[in-house]
């Protein structure tokens, strides 16, 4: 589904290199965890996959479902099924959550040549997804993320994901800022979306989330490169030994 080859990325502003040759292949149905110390380039990788401006791909390629992902606009990528749950979801004052979700879903459907969802069908869909994720109606009435606590913002991201039903889910530190109960709810929501034709890339700093969302593959990102890959036991190893072997300080 996703094939990243020798990806080099630098910041447009100051030419600072952040990703230095990332290789990663993700097949449908798989869950990959990317772990790594702060500043190793995890969020940058997720932004480049989602299509954020400000980064320059200096080498390498990203193929998604057989297409050149890097050629597509962010909204095209979303319509093709790429979803990024942001590490820091931002507040959008004045844009109502329900309106936002409806425009997002119907824009994607239109782009895919599907018909728009009627308002009652849309309401039913959001309501059922919100119940599963314990997102209350009051949150849905507010502008997007405005006045949400850190945990509520993360849950709202997963709600968006559940409503939009993407093919490739990239979760950037969705676990940070969640207490154990919220973590469990979010993990259940994510697990409910696991399916043979959907893939997930779960970015996390801690092994804890992976107790709930069990990955097929674990990768360690350090200084902009994947330096080690393995099964779920690699996460436990990291939990025990920390990132000392991979961080700048150790080098």
């Amino acid at each position: 589904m996703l094939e990243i080859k020798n990806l080099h990325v630098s910041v447009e502003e100051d030419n600072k290199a952040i990703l230095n040759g990332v290789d990663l292949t993700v097949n449908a149905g798989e869950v990959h965890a990317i772990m790594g110390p702060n500043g190793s380039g995890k969020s940058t990788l997720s932004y480049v996959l989602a299509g954020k401006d400000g980064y320059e791909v200096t080498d390498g390629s990203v193929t998604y479902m057989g297409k050149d992902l890097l050629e597509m606009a962010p909204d095209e990528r979303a319509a093709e099924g790429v979803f990024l749950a942001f590490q820091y979801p931002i507040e959008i004052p004045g844009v109502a959550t329900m309106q936002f979700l409806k425009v997002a879903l119907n824009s994607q459907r239109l782009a895919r040549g599907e018909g728009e969802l009627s308002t009652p069908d849309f309401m039913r869909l959001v309501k059922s997804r919100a119940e599963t994720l314990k997102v209350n109606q009051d949150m849905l009435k507010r502008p997007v993320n405005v006045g949400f606590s850190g945990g509520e913002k993360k849950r709202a991201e997963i709600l968006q994901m559940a409503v939009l039903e993407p093919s490739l889910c990239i979760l950037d530190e969705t676990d940070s800022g969640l207490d154990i109960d919220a973590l469990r709810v979010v993990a259940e929501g994510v697990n409910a979306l696991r399916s043979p034709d959907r893939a997930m890339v779960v970015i996390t700093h801690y092994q804890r989330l992976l107790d709930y969302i069990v990955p097929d593959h674990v990768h360690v990102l350090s200084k902009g490169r994947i330096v080690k890959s393995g099964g779920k036991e690699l996460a436990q190893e990291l939990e025990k030994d920390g990132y000392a072997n991979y961080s700048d300080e150790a080098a």
Partner: protein
Amino acid sequence: MAIATQKTAAETAYLEGFDAGGDWLAAERQKGFDAFAVTGLPHRRMEDWKWTDLRQLIGKAYPPAKGGAVGDIDALAAKCPLKDIARGHLTFVNGEYDAGRSQLPASGDVEVTALSTASSALPIGETAADPIDGLNRAYVTDGAFIRIKAGSNADAPLELVFINSSRAEATFTTRNVIELEDGASATVFETHMGGHDAYVSNSVTEVRLGNGARLDRVKLQMEGAASYHLSNLKADLGAEAKLQDFTLTMGSATTRQQGFITFNGEHTDATVSGAFLLNRKQHNDTRLVVDHKVPNCVSRELFKCVMDDEARGIFQGKVIVRQDAQKTDGKQSSHALLLSPTAEFDAKPELEIYADDVVCGHGATSGDLDENLLFYLRARGIPEKKAKSMLISAFVAESFDDVDNEAVRDVLKDLADSWLAAR
């Protein structure tokens, strides 16, 4: 205020076109003319007019005129966005009362008269040392006089409609008075529409609120694209009164609108807010002077301004707190969103405070759309154009929250959305 040595074509046309007339307004017109004859049109060397040099901007002669409308007035009348919410209408076409397009409320507590139909003198307001007021007084042809008797309410909205459409260059001048006696309340809409040929529209509204009175006023400025819109709001507020004023400016090539709000009685609240939606080379210079003469009053001003293409928005807001006006709470803010690199916004906030126990502040921001917000929407599949529209609409709509009437807020949102859809 130097006497202009050489008269411009526009000034000459005004001076030569003067006719005091023989009605009850003759003496007022003469006062206005005398003031105008001294000052002429305002120009950039006058501090408050540095961004809007009318002597230069009004290049041609626009002689004072009345009536003689051309074009499809019915179509313009049908386009008035608030017409279905209003319960009474008073329509003026090219500065002339149009009885056929007016339906007045039938209530003895609500007095509504067109100035031209009044048989005796009505109080149209003291002269002010202001060029727009002088011109307006000199050439006023008609307008609405509304008086709500003490304790009664006219909350069913009354709409004043001004439609200007002329092939010949001309100036149309109207003057309105809204007088709410003690404890009275009213909702008044002002809708300014116009045809596409150039004209000057000069419209002044005098508001007098008695003690405990409340006025909700909503003005839509949708004048023709080639026109000049000059207008004043002058509001004198009694004690424990409330003024909620909102102006949406979308029309005209050049707009200068001014608000003079004076607190004369304690425990009064005034909110004066608005939005600009400007494109092409539209120019809107809005100036407000809020004068706290007495203690314990609250003033709020919020303007959300969107400028596209080469449009230019200006917000000049002055809050004066007199020595006696302790416990004044005055806040003013203007926020601009620039949608093109050639759009421009200038803000000149001024606080003039002579009392020591007050809470006053102002804030002005200007910038383009937040890239991070835009990316968030696009990452969810919303195409760029739609994502921008949603953010711009959300930006402007913040000012609509100052309008209490939900149906009016919906109309304002629709107007903003159709403006955005046409981008």
